[in-house]
């Protein structure tokens, strides 16, 4: 079997790269062994939230500029030309590319009929199931409507479902109103309520996806709307755990009309419905462009000399060899399976590329414990999770000497070193931007 571009990994980076290459008319195959790590995400597009010191960026573009200037090994620096480039030029190039890639992302989401809202010039804070917040850049409109600025000087009600253990609206409301003063917002009132969802009454162990499916059913949604109307006397904003899988925007509209208030979704933890939706949308956009996305395809080996010649792919019990002109490694970090620990040291899983920490140390010689803080959630994150492979400005994996390892291999997403998406709140941003660039580069 032969294709033009072989993409390893169907997360945000891989699917973006695949779509871009397919849009250029290339034959693209995406191989995914499982479901990718993007499905575990909160479903919003963080681009740049914090410096490792905990400094909160007012906007993603400010974050990208500061990072590109200060941190030479960060992907946001590398895409602007890397270490060799003048800082000012690097900053400019990088910001330009980030804007282009995210504009392209928003358009691609529009093409699958979903509105992502937000701006690179303003970070917004979104609230999650436990009533804390994180800075983010772009969100589905269903989540964006609930960003904390919108909630200022108004009445907010957090609505939950009894028996859904992931989210307690009472706690969420309390936590939100305790945190609000620090966010410089003053809601007029913050309350909570429980909502009956037809078919889920009197139960425990309710899953988010079960609520979502009922939202997608027009008859049930109408009843939910009526219940909402009955339960809530008046509010400016109503927070709900999920708006559905298939048609969240329409569902929110229906509920908003019934309740006479702005209705929005909270961000949540895995299994998160917005995370699931994001992957499905990225996949649909890539497929619409002509890419072929295959799940259950596990890359188990590579034939390489100076170029990658072919990959061995395990499909079911059979191993098939697939050839391509260009390969894109978007296999993720540890969670996605792109990086792994073996005999106390770190390895890249597919090509055995050297793995580096964010300060440039080759991790084939450093014991893993050195990359961990004794504090469980340290400011700036554990070094371990900013480790990955090094790439040049074209996103080609490079060796210790700085030379491309294989002429036809590009990499994108969290397999890259130099950034800690957990601490920075930059996961989807880096994935989409590097995926975009890798897709362009792969298309020549």
């Amino acid at each position, binding site marked *: 079997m032969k294709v033009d571009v072989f993409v390893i990994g169907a997360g945000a980076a891989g699917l973006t790269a695949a779509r871009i290459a397919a849009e250029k008319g290339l034959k693209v195959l995406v191989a995914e062994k499982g479901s990718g790590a993007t499905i*575990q995400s909160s479903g919003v597009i963080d681009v740049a939230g914090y410096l490792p010191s905990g400094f909160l960026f007012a906007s993603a573009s400010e974050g990208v500029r500061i990072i590109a200037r200060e941190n030479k090994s960060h992907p946001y620096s590398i895409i602007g030309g890397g270490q060799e480039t003048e800082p000012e030029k690097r900053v400019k190039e990088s910001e330009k590319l980030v804007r282009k890639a995210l504009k392209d992302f928003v358009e691609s989401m529009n093409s699958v009929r979903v509105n992502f809202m937000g701006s690179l010039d303003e970070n917004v804070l979104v609230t999650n199931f436990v009533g804390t917040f994180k800075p983010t850049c772009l969100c589905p409109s269903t989540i964006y409507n609930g960003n904390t600025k919108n909630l200022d000087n108004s009445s907010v009600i957090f609505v939950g479902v009894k028996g859904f253990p992931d989210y307690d609206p009472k706690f969420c409301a*309390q936590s939100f109103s*305790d945190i609000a003063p620090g966010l410089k917002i003053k809601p007029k009132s913050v309350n909570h309520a429980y909502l009956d969802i037809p078919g889920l009454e*009197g*139960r425990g162990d309710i899953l988010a996806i079960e609520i979502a499916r009922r939202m997608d059913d027009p008859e049930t949604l109408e009843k939910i709307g009526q219940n909402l109307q009955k339960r809530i006397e008046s509010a400016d904003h109503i927070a709900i755990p999920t708006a559905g899988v298939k048609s969240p925007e329409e569902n929110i509209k229906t509920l908003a009309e019934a309740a006479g208030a702005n209705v929005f979704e909270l961000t949540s933890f895995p299994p998160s419905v917005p995370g699931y939706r994001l992957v499905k949308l990225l996949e649909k956009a890539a497929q619409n462009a002509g890419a072929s996305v295959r799940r259950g395809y596990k890359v188990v080996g590579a034939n390489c000399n100076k170029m990658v010649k072919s990959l061995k792919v395990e499909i079911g019990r059979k191993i098939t060899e697939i050839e391509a002109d260009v390969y894109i490694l978007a296999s993720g970090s540890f969670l996605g399976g792109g990086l792994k620990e073996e005999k106390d040291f770190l390895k890249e899983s597919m090509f055995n590329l050297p793995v580096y920490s964010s300060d440039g140390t080759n991790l084939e010689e450093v014991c893993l414990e050195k990359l961990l803080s004794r504090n469980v*959630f340290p400011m700036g994150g554990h070094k371990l999770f900013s480790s990955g492979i090094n790439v040049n400005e074209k996103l080609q994996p490079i060796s210790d000497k700085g030379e491309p390892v294989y002429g036809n291999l590009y990499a994108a997403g969290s397999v890259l070193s130099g950034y800690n998406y957990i601490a920075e709140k930059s996961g989807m941003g880096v994935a989409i931007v590097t995926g975009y660039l890798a897709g362009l580069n792969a298309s020549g």
Partner: protein
Amino acid sequence: MSCLSDEYDVIVVGGGSSGAGTARDCAMRGLKTVLLERNDFGSGTSGTCAGMISGGVKYLDEPEMVALCTKEVVHLQKIAKHIVFRLPIITAIVNEIDLKARTSKKTDYSQYTALRGASPITLISKEEACKIEPKLSDKILLAAYFDEMFIDPFRLCMLNALSAKNHGAVVRNYTEVIDVIREGDRVKGVKVKDKKTGKTEEIYGKFVANCAGPWVPRISKMASINQPLRLNKGSHVIFDRRITGVGVVCRALDGRSVYLFPHFDTTVLGTTAWDIFGNPDDAETSYDDVEYLISSIEVAVPSIREARVIRTMCGVRPMLPEWWITEDEATRNFKLIDHEQRDGVKGIVSFEGGKLVIYRIMAEKMTDLICQKLGVEAECKTHIEPLPGAEGDVDIELWAEEYNMPTHTIGRIASRHGSNTPEILNLTRENPEYKSTICRCESVTEAEMRYSLRNEFATSLSDLRRRVRLGMGPCQSTFCNFKALTVIADELNLSPEQAHKNAIEFAQERWRGKCILLRGDQVSEEELNQAIYAGVANYDTLSDFWEED
């Protein structure tokens, strides 16, 4: 600040098995008792063991000890039947040196196994052994097959404390003894600090029972008594599932014994025995401990290297101060120290040495001594009267039907709460949403958490871990922490700040055991944990945020 009527007969220091057991016995014999634990019940030595209550197969050179252990196992099978379980074990004889050493033991263990209702030790061939446990190496020479009893050590400590309370004792965890009040040659009480409120107070009593395990020397020092112990560190490695069907014991690289025991949903590999000379609070599992254990058991179970380690665990044994012999040769028996006799200080007694399995007889002897000194005549009944939950019968299938819940879930609740299970299930009558499973690894329902918070001295998520195994499974709290924190906030009326901090503390406590040996697939599990709590919930910047506020 105390008048005589406030004076206790006994102040028990230490809420491990020996302390909680002593408090129970004292209270049952009508003594006015207070139990003080500086952290949580079972959070020290008792809570860091594998839970084995051995009939004493390791001590065949000490026949008295074997007899004593066996008798205690028989008692525990009655008084704590719901938290005792049986595990078949294969001792794999791995080489010639091993073979020689094993056959030279003096005591015939079989005469004791029958007493416990256990199978006798049977020598079996390599082939038979591999049939029973396919993960065994085909290079072993011979094997011995027998079985031992195990207990949930956390619940054992808590149930003793609970029983003490039910018999009138005052029971306090998170209350640290910071000084011993001594006047002349007599100890009159202790000064304590409530760790939750920071308040200090004095508590007076006729006797201080120093049951602080490895911290016994520290309490004695507060009474100006010099009491050195031999402190010995035992480390364990915990795996993410039941790797073997039976327990496996084999000779370690240095000639001691190591074991691999399936334990609830995990497997425990232990243990090391290194003497330590520093502060027992600082004892930690080291990389060498882990390598020693894995390299040793690997000879019998070669696939162990591929298994996923979820965490490490470490405890300190308070051994008798006997030196010039190896830890294995040292006795595991205990000594009851009457400091009036030994040091000329009245009003204080203490333990040296001891083991989980004999905690009850230790407590009995100490209570005998105190009663004798107080001139109280009362019989010990701790071996007859069941601990809470062991009083009645368990009918999992009946309850599953009655409360419309899975038998699996009820089975788990019953394995912790025995005949008190319906009290938990009743909570779901009014609130069916309490049927929700908060910790899916260990099948912990919201109802059980709430019951424990109301009735079992639990005040934090870490306490719930010890009570109901919350967050003890493969995901190590990744998927239950964010659900559990809202339950505890509601039940204990915590502020959101307190609840978030509680969740961070819980994660921190898990991290302490994880960060030593983050390997293989557990690295990706941890990435998810970090992505949820630092990434989405923003806990890495949250602490700053509350301070600003």
